[in-house]
C-alpha cells in the first residue's frame, strides 16, 4: 500500500506549474538548519518524518512546510527541544512582530526610511 509521499503514477495529478520561484530566505535558513542537525537525526529519519505527516495535512502543505513539521517532530522525539519551548518562542516572536506594527510606529519608520532618498 502506497503512502502519501509515494506519488509515482498517481492518476489524478494535474498540470505541472512551471513558475520559477527563488527560495525565500526562511526556506534557505530552514535547509541550513536541517543540514546542521545531522548530529541529531539522519536523512532517512527525516524522510520518514515527512512520510508520516497525516495525509490530509501533507496535501495542503508546501514542500518546505512539510520540512518544518519533520524537523520539529524529530527534534522533539530526540529530546533536543520541547513542544512547550517552541510554542513559547513563537509567542515571543508574535509579541515583537505585533509591537512593531502598531500603526504610529509603522508610519514613522516608513517616513524616516524615505527621507534620505527623496529630499
Amino acid at each position, binding site marked *: 500500500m502506497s503512502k502519501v*509521499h*509515494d*506519488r*509515482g*503514477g*498517481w*492518476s489524478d*495529478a*494535474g*498540470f*505541472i*506549474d*512551471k*513558475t*520559477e*520561484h527563488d*527560495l*525565500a*530566505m*526562511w526556506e*534557505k*535558513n*530552514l*535547509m*541550513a*538548519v536541517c*543540514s*546542521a*542537525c545531522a*548530529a*541529531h537525526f539522519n536523512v532517512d529519519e527525516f*524522510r520518514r518524518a*515527512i512520510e508520516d505527516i497525516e495525509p490530509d495535512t501533507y*496535501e495542503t*502543505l*508546501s*514542500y*518546505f*512546510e512539510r*520540512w*518544518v*513539521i519533520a*524537523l*520539529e517532530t524529530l*527534534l522533539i522525539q530526540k529530546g*533536543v*527541544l520541547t513542544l512547550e*519551548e*517552541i510554542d513559547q*518562542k*513563537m509567542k515571543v*516572536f*508574535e509579541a*515583537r*512582530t505585533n509591537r*512593531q*506594527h502598531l500603526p504610529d510606529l509603522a508610519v514613522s519608520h516608513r517616513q524616516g526610511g524615505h527621507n534620505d532618498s527623496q529630499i
Partner: protein
Amino acid sequence: MHNHDHDADAHSLIAEDPELSFYAKRAAAIEALLIEKGMVTADNIRRRIEIMDSRTPAVGAQVVAKAWVDPDFRTRLLANAKAAVAELDIEVESPNLVAVENTVGIHNVIVCTLCSCYPTVLLGASPGWYKSLEYRARVVVDARGVLREFGLELDEEVQVRVYDSTAEMRYIVIPQRPDGTEHMSEEELAALITRDSMIGVARARTPAGEMES
C-alpha cells in the same frame, strides 16, 4: 555568550516580513532555540547558506561542456561521475553521482517520486516544479506527455528513459551537443547548457536560440 545577538538575528528575519506564514515563523523559532542552546551557531547557518548559494546550474554546465569537448573526460564521467567531477575540483560528498547521456536514439529524464532527490552539487536548489506532486506523479507514467508540456516533442524512434532516483545515487543528464557548435569554446558551450537540459526536460540551447534570447 552572544545569545541576544543571535536571537535578534533570527528575529530580524521575522521583522522583515510580517506576512511570514505560521510555518516560516515556526522554523525561525526552532532556529532561534537551537542557537540559544549552542547546538548551532548563526555563523554556521550563514556559511551553509553561502555554500548553497554557490551551487548553481553553471557548475553542471561546466561539467557537461567539458564532456562535449573532451572525449576522454566524457568516458570517465559516464564511467564514474563522482571521480570525474572531482578532477574539476567539484566535491560530491555523498551520495554518489551518475551521468547519463542523451544521444540521437536515447532521451533521459530524471525524477524522484518518493521525495525530491536532485544533484544539488551540480545544479543548485531544485526548481519548484521538480518537487511538485504533479511532476513526481506523472513523469514516470507519461514521460512523453510531460516533456511535451515542457515544449519537448520526441520522435517515436527515440527511446525515453526515466530515472527514478530512489536511493543513494543522484543523476544528471548530459544533453546532446547541438549542431553548429563545432567552432565554439568550452565557455561558450557552457552558456547553452541549461538546468532543464541537465534534468532532461529540455534540450540544450542552440547557438541561434542563444542569440535570440
